């Protein structure tokens, strides 16, 4: 899409105005408003990337593998934003816990991670809100089972006020599909890796579905899991359930899902 420079400037001014209206005039971190994920995904957002200072939600298929994928997804985003407050339940739905050496390889260094374990969802939400009140944090992540519309709205308001990004992960198979006041909702699941020349596991791949976004965009992609800097790699776009091969010989198109 080609734009003349004047049009682009007008658009940027309009977007700034809309942001100010949306955030009641005062955002904590006005300097950066979006985090680029992948060019193919960023094109869908008016901000030019994942909008910051609001609530995002990600769910998976309820399996432990899905939980690991969600952890790495939130870790890769949080590690690029700064200090991450990670709120988890003391007893996890799958009997597993965060493993820092693995998060480092998804782009979240140990120095940027502060963990809080709560006994209940209520205490976890309170800890998240507390974290969202501190603008020096980059991101607040919560692994939560039950999230009501009211609670998600509170998180969204707290995130808007301080400019800290909030991510709720719903790894539990019991996590209810309720209405959530999030700027974007994702579904992320594992996907078989691309065939490799030598018989060993290649780069892990995920199926990344953008179910809902404030801008109205939706999408469905196959991506490569984040590297140690937290950057995703693009693999294919899924249309009507079929992955569209990108024009490179080593990737092969296959049925997704």
């Amino acid at each position, binding site marked *: 899409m080609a734009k003349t420079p004047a049009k682009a400037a007008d658009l940027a001014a309009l977007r700034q105005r809309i942001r100010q209206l949306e955030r009641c005039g005062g955002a904590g971190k006005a300097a950066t408003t979006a985090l680029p994920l992948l060019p193919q995904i960023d094109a869908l957002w008016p901000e030019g990337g994942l909008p910051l200072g609001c609530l995002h939600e990600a769910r998976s298929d309820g*399996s*432990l*593998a899905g*939980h*690991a*994928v969600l*952890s*790495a*997804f939130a*870790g890769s985003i949080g590690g690029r*934003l*700064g*200090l991450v*407050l990670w709120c988890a339940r*003391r007893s996890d739905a*799958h*009997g*597993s*816990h*965060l*493993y*820092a*050496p*693995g998060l*480092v*390889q*998804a782009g979240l*260094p*140990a*120095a*940027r*991670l*502060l*963990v*809080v*374990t*709560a*006994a209940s969802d209520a*205490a976890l939400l*309170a*800890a998240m809100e*507390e*974290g969202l009140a*501190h603008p*020096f944090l*980059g991101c607040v992540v919560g692994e939560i089972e039950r999230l009501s519309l009211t609670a998600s709205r509170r998180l969204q308001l707290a995130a808007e006020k301080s400019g800290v990004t909030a991510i709720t992960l719903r790894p539990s198979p019991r996590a209810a599909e309720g209405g959530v006041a999030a700027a974007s909702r994702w579904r992320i699941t*594992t996907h*078989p*890796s691309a065939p*490799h020349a030598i*018989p*060993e*596991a*290649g780069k*892990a*791949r*995920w199926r990344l579905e953008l179910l809902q976004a404030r801008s109205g965009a939706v999408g469905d992609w196959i991506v490569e*899991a*984040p590297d*140690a800097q937290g950057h995703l790699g693009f693999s294919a776009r899924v249309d009507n359930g079929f992955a569209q091969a990108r024009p490179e010989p080593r990737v092969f198109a296959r049925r997704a899902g």
Partner: protein
Amino acid sequence: MDLRRRAQSRASSPAAPDKPFVTAATDGRARTVVAVNAAAAARGIVRGMALARARVIDPAVEVEPARPKAEARTLFRLTVQMLRYSPLVAPSPPDGLWIDATGAAHLFGGAAAMVDKIVRRLQGEGLTARAAMAVTPGAAWAWARYGSGGVLEDTAALNALPLAALRLPGETVQALRRLGLKRIADLKGLPRATIPQRFGPDVLLRLDQALGGAFEPIDPILPPRARRQRLAFAEPIATPEDLARTILRLTTDLCDDLDRAQDGARQFDLVFARIDGGIEPIRLRCAHPTRDAGHIAKLLTAKLENVDPGFGIEAATLTALKIAPLAPRQIDTNGGTVTESDFGALVDRLASRVGVRNVFRLAGVASELPERAAVAASPMRSPQNQWPAHWPRPARLLSPPEPVYVIALLPDYPPATFRWRDRSHSVRIADGPERMFGEWWRDAREVGEQRDYFRVETEKGERYWLFRTSRPGANAVWFMHGVFA
């Protein structure tokens, strides 16, 4: 009823215990003995005696000049040490100290055991000490110096002690002796009303203080580097709003003090004194030294619900403990810096919601086994990445590892299919092994343990971390240890 028990112990200067040893000071023209050790006392040398006379009694007596300032410092240091036994301690110059053991003795296994512990502790410092516990400070003073020491259950035992045990000046004791009054029992036999007229007001006061007829407060020392603010109210207060206002005022004053000294504190003790004599304490511990009044007041107010004001609260005291210098410093979060006190404030607030143990960072430990390589660490210290970057590690770990039923084509091969948590997985790609050994220096059961880790990808693209463990002479067993993203 509140039975006030006070322990009184006496300490003298260290020296070889079997040699007579005294310290002497110049008193006018003569040099007099100030303190004696047990061996000198056994030979009849007493305090206040002229040094020349002491030398006549035992020419071999060792003499050192008294150093009142250094001794006072030592006494204060000992008094501070006694804070471990009770919060109310005071020096009793020149050679004693008070410990208000009210309500503290049961923590040390009873009164006798507590006295015993104190004496042994002082002996460990190389001091000769005697301690006594009694219902009044005066009785404890007398029993430690003139009685047999230990726990005095009944003040009637004081009757046989000389009048000097009542802390009376030497000339008063002399005057009483001339009248034939030598023991406390003699004084008790006189009509009360006549005693102040004949001997001055001190004698009756000291007698009453020893026997419990008059109250005697001790002037407790503050723990070193503690700061305190107190508010007393003309009318008792009870509503939560009033208590919250009190907290805010106390913390503001206290933090002003700390601010002037460029200090911060890690512990705050707030004590409400009720009009019925009870106390309602709140203790607050912080992750990082702080002097942010709003922060401290918020955390203290959050604990108000545990306070029962009863019929009203007449005074409130806020003490700052564990004081450390607090200059603004920065901690590195590896992506912009945050001042340590900002970060400490966040940690405190989280800890007050979920508990101190549940706020932590994940720090690396040099260990062979993956489950020991990352541990929970203090939130205030920024951990470094110490893990090898070239070996893939899972994002989530199962602890403990769970047994898996595995089918492999050959014993040494990676899994072809496995069954875990009631689901069958067929392996598409496998990578490994990565071999790890048990840490026999930590646990004898790990001698000879060996694990071969495989990274497997299933048909659905899920990636698991499985290991095969083998010990000498046993079959291989498979475990599931983690899941990759």
